[in-house]
């Protein structure tokens, strides 16, 4: 369908109450299912005749169901004949027992009339607009004098229909501050203000936009938005909520925005970078997007349960972020409102079910990053080992992990297993995971495998192990999990002496040749735990005629093992399971993971699929999301960026484009931008944003008047420029920036700026909030350590989420608690003191000059006389209270306690006030 036949939607809005404005009141036009009928069905019928219930065997969710025979044997809708349609008869039935809706309000006469006419006209079904790919749309001819680019005519046409005028262009200083905050999250420096205000070239604004897009702070600002969707946090969540080392993913996001990685690649790398051919480190780190799911490290929890929870979250998050589809509704039953079947959830689940991670405490699989010193030492040792003799084949062009693996051969380092199932890994070994899986030990396999192990002349394998009982056996098979049995042997109970692990088990193996995959399975003959529990710390392949290892070589290997297991910085990443160990995905009966029924293959909801072919795996799924065939992705993403700039999306519900969502305010504009984003901009986010911020729509002044407030109270029709409170991150960053405190270095580990005592409630952990020293406490908000169960107070006060789950929209609030943060939080007081210093430097002995300088630094424009007078009065009041105002040196005092700040400077009182002005906290 197209949007062209929406007539005068704007004028109708005020009249139609709960019905959508798609509904056209004209009596002559053809009845459209989407415009006229669907809103009625959604509001009054689907609760009983939809995805959850199909009362009487009748459902209006899918076309084939709506026209199929119901329980009575007859179809409820007879196209062309409303009189013969049971649907119509039931709506008008005299008997209240038979008249629909049974318990709810009857349909109005007008609604019934529309349905009758729709049936008479053939009852033509239409899919919801969001499932039909956007079609090219002619740019309206309206607003030619006003327009700066093609966004504007779409906006102008709506304004015209509402009898509204666009607002005049914002003044230059306001525009400069607005666009700086929008593109980089930071205010312009005083120098940037002067430069822009004095640049009278005709393309001064466009040049400014380009320089902001090129700023390295661009990536930081947009990363802050993306991290809400990625539910990025520095902790693992759930009850214990311990530290998670995943900040390299944040750096990746910042870098990706900065180098304008096209959004399609941005998508593919995050969802399936590990499945790309020869992925590089960056592409692997990108996959940490979905390692931001929570990991339950609480003792006694079933890892499989929380693995399933993580996979479900990945699925829900992916559909929310890219498809604005509430897939979680389909976990337990078919969607109540959208045409998505229950099975579709588990078909998509299969794509995410084939990664190796399994809720392990150490978060395997992981990507190692060797700290500089360790990396140097590894290279040095590898050199020594190569010098020792030709026995060791080491590829020095490979990554360090591979080199270590080769250098350790014929030892296999358990934590480098190529795939695993129901076992967990300590720093120094592999543990059969029975103790955690007691409740459901039956049916579980406890195994791990190494790829391509050389079997030539292999005689036996030595396991260094610890076992508390005699219940466990080891089985070795080659090529596949059920492949030929090479060896089987029992672990006998041994003791842990002086902290050293028990002894060795020597397992002779049948002769073999060539390289093969080697599968290790730990069998518990009694299904008892913990007696059956086994730990294996070393696995050594012993070959015939192997030279006895040089003691020096042994020492080098020991050091390599230690570096690899204990001194490496690990980032959790995605890693596909080896084919032979892939999981069989099944339908969860009513969403219950413990009752799995029909086996399913990977797939996506039919309604979103153009053509027939289902994506084969996670990589293909990611590619499908960003193919031009996908009806939703470009619209959804464009809407997200639009919302960050204008304060609300063209569809307000950024997270839901389904049939229950609010209709778009400017549907043609949304489609136009979506098509341009894919086709002309080649998925370039910077190009998209450039187009948005150079439009006349964006450049409007944000000043309202009575008419605009009456007709467009919340600016959904864009009758003025955006004006809304800054985000939590921006408010912090801006205070630091204008006071000159900001440490503007890019990337790196999270930091801990001052936080009140007692905010962290730590269970089972010695973790403490250690206030970062010096300038590290003045980093941008997105680097603040993010603990899910106890988020940073000032961030939460300004509506940032706790990041347990994907959040598409932060609901903006305006509370006294926010006032207390910017008035009294030591971070803001420190900024006030620093700003005061700057003010004095700029103004010298001239108090009013100092005030004007401070105001300009903070708000990017000149203060008027009245404002200066008000702040001057405040200074005088403060001065009269604080003794010896001019005699005393004004320094920024860093006390021992980061939460104790003493104000001794009247100018800091003024600066504190400036940092609390509405104009400072607001983008306008």
């Amino acid at each position, binding site marked *: 369908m197209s949007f062209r036949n929406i007539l005068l939607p704007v004028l109708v*809005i005020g*009249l*139609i*109450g*709960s019905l959508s404005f798609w509904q056209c009141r004209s009596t002559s036009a053809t009845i459209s299912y989407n415009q006229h009928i669907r809103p009625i069905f959604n509001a009054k019928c689907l609760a009983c005749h939809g995805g959850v*219930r199909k009362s009487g065997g009748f459902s209006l969710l899918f076309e084939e169901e709506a026209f199929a025979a119901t329980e009575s044997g007859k179809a409820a809708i007879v196209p062309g004949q409303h009189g013969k349609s049971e649907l119509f008869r039931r709506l008008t039935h005299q008997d209240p027992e038979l008249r629909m809706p049974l318990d709810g*309000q009857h349909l109005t006469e007008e609604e019934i009339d529309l349905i009758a006419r729709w049936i008479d006209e053939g009852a033509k079904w239409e899919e919801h607009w969001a499932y039909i790919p956007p079609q090219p749309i002619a740019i309206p001819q309206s607003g030619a004098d006003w327009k700066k680019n093609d966004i504007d005519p779409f906006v102008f046409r709506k304004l015209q229909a509402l009898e509204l005028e666009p607002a005049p262009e914002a003044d230059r200083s306001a525009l400069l501050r607005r666009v700086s905050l929008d593109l980089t999250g930071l205010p312009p420096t005083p120098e940037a203000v002067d430069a822009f205000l004095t640049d009278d070239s005709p393309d001064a604004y466009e040049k400014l936009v380009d320089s902001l897009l090129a700023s390295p702070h661009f990536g930081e600002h947009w990363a802050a938005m993306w991290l809400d969707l990625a539910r990025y946090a520095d902790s693992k969540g759930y009850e214990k909520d311990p530290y998670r080392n995943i900040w390299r993913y944040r750096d990746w996001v910042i870098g990706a925005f900065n180098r304008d990685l096209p959004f399609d690649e941005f998508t593919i790398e995050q969802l399936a970078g590990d499945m790309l051919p020869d992925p590089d480190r960056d592409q692997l780190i990108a996959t940490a997007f979905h390692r931001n799911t929570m990991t339950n490290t609480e003792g006694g929890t079933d890892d499989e349960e929380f693995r399933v929870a993580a996979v479900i979250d990945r699925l829900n998050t992916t559909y929310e972020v890219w498809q604005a589809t509430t897939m979680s509704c389909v976990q*337990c039953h078919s969607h109540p409102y959208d045409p998505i079947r229950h099975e579709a959830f588990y078909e998509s689940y299969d794509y995410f079910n084939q990664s190796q991670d399994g809720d392990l405490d150490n978060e395997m699989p992981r990507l190692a990053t060797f700290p500089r010193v360790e990396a140097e030492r590894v290279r040095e040792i590898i050199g020594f080992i190569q010098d020792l003799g030709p026995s060791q084949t080491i590829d020095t062009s490979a990554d360090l992990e591979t080199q270590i693996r080769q250098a350790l051969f014929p030892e296999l380092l358990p934590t480098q297993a190529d795939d695993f199932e129901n076992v967990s890994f300590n720093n120094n070994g592999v543990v059969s995971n029975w103790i955690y899986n007691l*409740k*459901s030990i039956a049916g579980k396999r406890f195994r791990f495998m190494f790829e391509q192990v050389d079997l030539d002349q292999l005689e036996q394998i030595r396991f260094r192990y610890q076992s508390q009982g005699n219940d466990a056996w080891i089985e070795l098979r080659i090529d596949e999990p059920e492949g030929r049995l090479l060896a089987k042997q029992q672990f006998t109970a041994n003791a842990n002496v002086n902290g050293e692990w028990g002894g060795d088990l020597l397992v002779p193996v049948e002769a073999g040749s060539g390289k093969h995959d080697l599968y290790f399975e730990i069998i518990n003959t009694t299904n008892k735990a913990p007696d059956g529990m086994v730990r294996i710390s070393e696995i050594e392949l012993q070959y015939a005629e192997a030279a006895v290892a040089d003691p020096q070589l042994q020492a080098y290997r020991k050091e390599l093992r230690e570096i690899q297991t204990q001194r490496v910085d690990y980032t959790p990443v995605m890693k596909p399971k080896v084919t032979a160990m892939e999981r069989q995905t099944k339908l969860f*009966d*009513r969403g*219950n993971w*413990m*009752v799995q029924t029909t086996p399913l293959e990977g797939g996506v909801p039919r309604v979103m699929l153009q053509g027939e072919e289902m994506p084969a795996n996670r990589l293909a799924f990611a590619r499908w999301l960003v193919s031009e065939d996908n009806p939703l992705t470009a619209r959804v993403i464009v809407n997200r960026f639009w919302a960050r700039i204008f304060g609300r999306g063209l569809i307000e519900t950024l997270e839901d484009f389904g049939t229950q969502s609010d209709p778009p305010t400017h549907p043609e504009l949304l489609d136009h931008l979506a098509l341009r984003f894919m086709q002309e901009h080649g998925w370039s986010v910077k190009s998209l944003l450039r187009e948005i911020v150079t439009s006349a729509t964006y450049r409007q002044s*944000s*000043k*309202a008047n*009575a008419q*605009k*407030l009456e007709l467009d109270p919340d600016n959904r029709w864009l009758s003025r420029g955006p*004006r*809304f*409170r800054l985000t939590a991150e921006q408010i912090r960053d801006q205070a630091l920036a204008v006071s000159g405190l900001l440490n503007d270095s890019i990337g790196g580990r999270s930091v801990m700026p001052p936080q*009140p005592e*007692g*905010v962290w*409630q730590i269970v089972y952990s010695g973790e403490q909030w250690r206030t970062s020293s010096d300038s590290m406490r003045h980093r941008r908000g997105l680097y603040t350590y993010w603990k899910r169960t106890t988020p940073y*107070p000032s961030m939460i006060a300004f509506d940032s989420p706790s990041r347990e789950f994907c959040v598409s929209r932060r*609901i903006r*609030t*305006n*509370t*006294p*608690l*926010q*006032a*207390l*943060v910017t*008035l*009294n*939080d030591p971070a803001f007081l420190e900024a006030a003191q620093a700003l005061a210093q700057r003010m004095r430097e700029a103004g010298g002995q001239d108090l009013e000059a100092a005030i004007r300088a401070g105001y300009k630094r903070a708000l990017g424009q000149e203060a008027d006389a*009245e*404002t200066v007078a*008000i702040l001057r*009065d405040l200074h005088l*009041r*403060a001065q009269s*209270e*604080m003794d010896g105002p001019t005699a005393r040196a004004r320094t920024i005092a860093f006390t021992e306690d980061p939460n104790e*700040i*003493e*104000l001794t400077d009247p100018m800091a*009182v003024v600066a504190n*006030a400036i940092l*609390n*002005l*509405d*104009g400072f906290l607001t983008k*306008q």
Partner: protein
Amino acid sequence: MKIYEEAKHQYYQYHTRRHFLKSCTTGLGAIALGSLFGCNTGSANDVEKAIQTMTGAGAHFAPRAKRVIYLHMAGAPSQLELFDYKPTLNQLNGKPCPPSLLEGKRFAFISGVPDMLGHQAEFQQHGESGAWISDRLPHFSTMADEVCFLKAMHTDEFNHAPAQLLLYSGSPRLGRPSMGSWVTYGLGSMNDNLPGYVVMVSGGKTPSAGKSVWGSGFLPSVYQGVQCRSEGDPVLYVSDPKGMSRDLRKQSIDAINRINRKEYEEFQDPEILTRVSQYEMAFKMQLSVPEAMDISKEPEYIHELYGTEPGRSSFANNCLLARRLAERGVRFIQLFQWGWDSHGAGKNEALNLGFKERCKEVDQPMTALLKDLKQRGLLEDTLVVWGGEFGRTPMQENRNGVAVPFSGRDHQTEAFTVWMAGGGIKSGISFGETDEIGYAGIKDRVHVHDLQATILHNLGLNHEKLTYHFQGRDFRLTDQFGRVVKEILA
């Protein structure tokens, strides 16, 4: 507050935002720390109009309660272990649910023929009213004659977040104002120095629907609930820095607000006025909140009554704080206690383990709250409500077909128990009945929209007339539904 002032105040509170703005635009800039909105410079005519509105329109009637204390048990406690005694259920324990009871019933999750789960607690009748209360609540059972049980509550939503949203905002989806926001929008605060709507959370977590259950939706954000802590600083950053005197802080907020009002004249953005009022509120809160939230000076017998320990975060402390806030005129006080989702999948959510602990945590404090309100004469005009977001099934939840070590029950929308006490509610009665296994209400069912209508009614608000115009139509808490449950009104 003088009647004249109060009338004026009410006038601004009753009116929609648009009216408020129109009447405010003239007087801006002149006021420092004034009323909630900082615009009490209305002319005598305005006040006359206000009084006329209050008496003339008939939209309001004499309230039976001035304030609400809502004790929410997040996760949904089992009515079958607390109040809804069904001897038949005990007889059926462990047996497949008889087909005669299943016939014609629609189940949300359970398939086939589930096993029945008898009461995991012992029941006795209490008080003159003979109310059935289980041994999980030994303290509360002494209050049987003070409360009114609604035993056939029902809702539409079977998941926590949407059910909590439906209960508190009238809609299962995000974005509608919460009940407390509607009430403060309608009635305002009775104390200019404290928020009208305070929320306190215990049990370690916020409810599933997050802060949306105390959000203001499309109402101006001044009406949203303010979360206070019962441990550490009651409200973070409530203290001024060293060197900043109270008077200087007043001067500084005055300067901020004067400049902000100038800005409002220029931009006409109502959010600016909200910010002005929030800075005024912040200033007042700096004094009043620490005072109100300090329970350490309460006498020993009060601490014994509630089981409170100053400085800790607990439901008990929150109950005592609720009484203190009620005394000080806070209009809507909402307590969330987390941890009632007794599926039986783990110890903490087992009816025979974690659930017992939850009962211990709330039994004494909620009893103490009723007693304490009563002995201070506050119960007469305070409406206390207790309940979860839905109920639980009479069937044992059975996730994998294998007996699990813990007993638990699934979510149930068709029956749960809520009790109410105080302002305008009959005491010592039980309203509504469920069937013989406690599966669904069969008599005097009360939907959550009806509960909302009744709460508003007791506060003197007509739920059909407390509306706000948004996106082209009038919205109200009860959506298009809701019936005042007159049968339980005193």
